[in-house]
């Protein structure tokens, strides 16, 4: 471990099969409180699947997942309450197109956290304010730019005051000039002490903000360490090949 703090995510021995496809082949991922873990690797390496196993959007074929002391795979766990503590941000935003930005943010506050409407709206507006979009509260997703839509999606997650945030390629479907606004919000989150697991190709952000970089390939964690070490002096041949390929671009 790099950061000496209590563990908040403990995923051990995770396997995932999709039919004949063996996507995760026994992965351990431990994340400490307030840590930002950055997961990189070629497409198809299983990084997104690993992330989705953490909040059980995918059911792991084998292994155990504890988040904030809750056994996510236990049948007796109220998975919907547990997911309140784990925010997730998707590559394709997945905003609800039939609701306003504020409606997107307040839906789970009202239905899962059971807040009365006015309190949910106050919390929702505060969350939108935090991502700099309080003035867009009444807009529908169709009226937002990609960068704004993704920041609303982040607000939707942080409004529930999660203990951990999962980011699944949050900037991959954005135009280059819009990436910065989303990364700025993520940086602010990090500085506020949020625990984050990020799957992304934004290597600059990884260098500047990550505590630890995890390199995955072919369903396994190949190598991990501080960003400086992984980027400057990778130990494994596969890591070296991947890093050099990325840096050429």
């Amino acid at each position: 471990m790099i950061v000496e703090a209590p563990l908040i995510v403990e995923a051990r021995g995770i396997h995932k099969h999709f039919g004949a496809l063996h996507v995760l082949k026994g992965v351990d991922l431990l994340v400490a409180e307030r840590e930002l873990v950055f997961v990189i690797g070629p497409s198809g390496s299983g990084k997104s699947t690993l992330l989705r196993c953490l909040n059980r959007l995918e059911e792991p074929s084998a292994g155990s997942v504890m988040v904030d002391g809750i056994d996510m795979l236990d049948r007796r766990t109220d998975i919907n309450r547990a997911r309140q503590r784990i925010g997730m941000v998707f590559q394709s935003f997945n905003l609800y197109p039939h609701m306003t930005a504020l409606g997107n943010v307040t839906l789970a506050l009202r239905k899962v956290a059971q807040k009365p409407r006015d309190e949910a709206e106050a919390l929702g507006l505060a969350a939108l304010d935090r991502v700099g979009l309080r003035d867009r509260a009444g807009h529908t997703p169709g009226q937002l730019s990609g960068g704004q839509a993704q920041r609303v999606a982040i607000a939707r997650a942080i409004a529930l005051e999660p203990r951990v945030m999962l980011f699944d390629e949050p900037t991959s479907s954005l135009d280059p000039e819009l990436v910065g606004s989303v990364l700025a919000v993520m940086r602010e989150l990090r500085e506020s002490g949020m625990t984050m697991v990020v799957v992304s190709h934004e290597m600059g952000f990884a260098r500047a903000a990550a505590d630890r970089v995890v390199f995955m390939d072919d369903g396994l964690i190949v190598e991990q360490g501080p960003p400086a070490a992984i980027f400057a002096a990778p130990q494994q041949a596969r890591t070296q090949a991947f890093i050099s390929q990325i840096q050429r671009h």
Partner: protein
Amino acid sequence: MTGWERFLDTFFNARVMAKYWPDILYGMVVTVELAVLVVISGIAAGLALALLRALGIRVFNWLLIFVVDVLRALPPLVIIVLIYFGLPSVDIVPSGFVSTWLALALVLMAFSEEIFWAGITAVPRGQWEAARSTGLSFIQTLLGVVMPQALRLTIPPLTSRTIAITKGTALGSVVAVSEILGQASSAVSNSYNPSPLMLGAAAYLVLFIPVVVAGRWVETRFAWKR
């Protein structure tokens, strides 16, 4: 009489029309009653079945799909005749009105279930995942996030299907329902003059032209756009 006058006297005979228009008007009331009943019960039942199908209970869904397929494959008139002439053999004697209502409502239920279900499956997976990741339950996600989007998608096909099935109320004339066509037909045989048919035709146009035009508007207004 010239040919034109004879034509007018035959098909637009003022005396016959004056005598039978109250009958046709009564037929219009019956047609509207039947249509409203069919639309409300058929769509409500179809929506309920689509929501039940989303629960994914395998045996129930197989049964559901089979029943829906049967109702889609059979001509509505065959279903009406089956109910009206078949059920009395087991001592259930539905009236022509009830038979027609039941048959058309079942057909609309089947078609609307298919349309609602297609709408539900058309909502992208990401919507389910985003909602579930914030802790919403399956039911909350289905009703609060997926259905509002699905309903919007289903409005155009549902509208045209509903109009088509509603026109089937004319089939009631076969089992002695006194809706427009039934009234017009018996007036024709009583007066031995086709003018009541012209009145009936006009009655249908008065009822359905606005519906068809409105349907055209709805279909363009809600065309596949996101």
